[in-house]
């Protein structure tokens, strides 16, 4: 998954949880939860959506890396390309 794909995916997930948010207006390096007004339940739903769609199961200890929009996108790119398992669709 490249950066554009990852961003599109994040956009979809965010839209599901926070339909009123326009990601283009979100500072890509600002704290994501604040910027999108996500509570911890929303964030868990976001992580769950990522898993359902990509098979990537993000452990809690990695949450800090998802702290901004850029961080989230980069994490997805890295997670889906690790070990040559491009696409990372584990199910």
């Amino acid at each position, binding site marked *: 998954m490249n950066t554009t794909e990852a961003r599109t995916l994040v956009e979809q997930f965010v839209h599901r949880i*926070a*339909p*009123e948010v326009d990601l283009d207006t979100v500072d890509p390096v600002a704290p994501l*939860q*604040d910027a999108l*007004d*996500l*509570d*911890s*339940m929303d964030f*868990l739903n976001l*992580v*769950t959506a990522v*898993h359902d769609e990509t098979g990537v*199961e*993000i*452990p*809690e*200890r990695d949450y800090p890396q998802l702290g901004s929009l850029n961080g989230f996108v980069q994490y997805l790119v890295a997670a889906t390309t690790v070990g040559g398992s491009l696409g990372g669709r584990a199910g």
Partner: protein
Amino acid sequence: MGEFRMPVLGADMEVGTIVEWRVAPGDVVHKGDIVAVVDTDKSTIEVEVFEDATIGEILVPPGVEVPVGTPLAELITAGEAADDAPVPVTTEATGPTETAFVRASPLARRRAAEAGIDLGELRGAGPSGAVLATDLPVATDLPIAADVAVDVPTDLPSTEDLDGATVLPDRSETRRRAVGVLMARSAREIPHYYLATDVDLLAATDWLRARNETVPLAERIVPAALLLRAVATAATRVDGVNGTWAGDHFVPATRVHLGVAVALRGGGLVAPTIPDADHLDVRETMDALRGVVERARSGVLRSSDAVAGTITVTDLGDQGVDEILGVIHTPQVALVGFGTVRERPWAADGMLGVRPVVRASLAADHRVSDGRDGARFLRLVADLLQRPEEL
């Protein structure tokens, strides 16, 4: 032959209207299945069935307003024959259906008739443009919510179109008013007192982290679920915080129906209930919390979410504030608040360290309890959170 009746979905509900049947005669249903969607004057609620059965005759079609307790459908339970003397459908006799010109909910129809309003002049927000009670110009008699729980938010589009074209009415204004009425009454009638204490969450967060590392994603638990669990347990052990005020005396509750204040995107507040929260473990509490938050935000609660609460929790932890001194939801007598979990300097065992700490607060009704009782309750919540594995 059993009957599925119009349930009471909120303390002040007298009538309801089936918006949609989700089952047909002959369908097999199990306890907890959603069988119908009901419109009350304040909300849209998915109604669950409380026993395993087969649906017999549908007795009340969509669109007809009936009093609570009215049989809506036959339920054939195990051992009964499906063709047991079905009750004939006599919906023609139930008044409100005769007006074919303007689609409107019966409640809207009744209110309009009472107020002398011509429905034809209104633009409806209901299914196929039907006029709903909420479309009527707001009169003076806003029904006072005995619990905000049944005042369902509907300013978001429904996530689940009822019949492909249904748009839920925008109740944000009536909801704002209902919250206002409830809070004003609480502030007027309840002599609140407030207590707060800092709670060391090191053990709790360590336990959660370790647990969440080892379970599948779907079983992860957010700290709020643990806090709710501690409150539900403590509420059963301290007198005077779990129950309701009945005009001139306190009625203690035997179970804990835990109200959970849920903030809505775009503003507003709704407090669905987790019934029998004292009988749920942490995992079940998490599932219940996830469910009520999802449904509250989607705009369609279930009948079980509208059970009258016996104590309410407000968790403002995600809003970045440290403490909440809440307003009790009448007729309840206590409201528990949690602020943000923060890393704070913490002295323990003669050492100063940094620990995750949350400030827990209690707003309680002085007619029912005193500071001493409230303090016992808060201390117990704090103690329980030191042993998360036992929750």
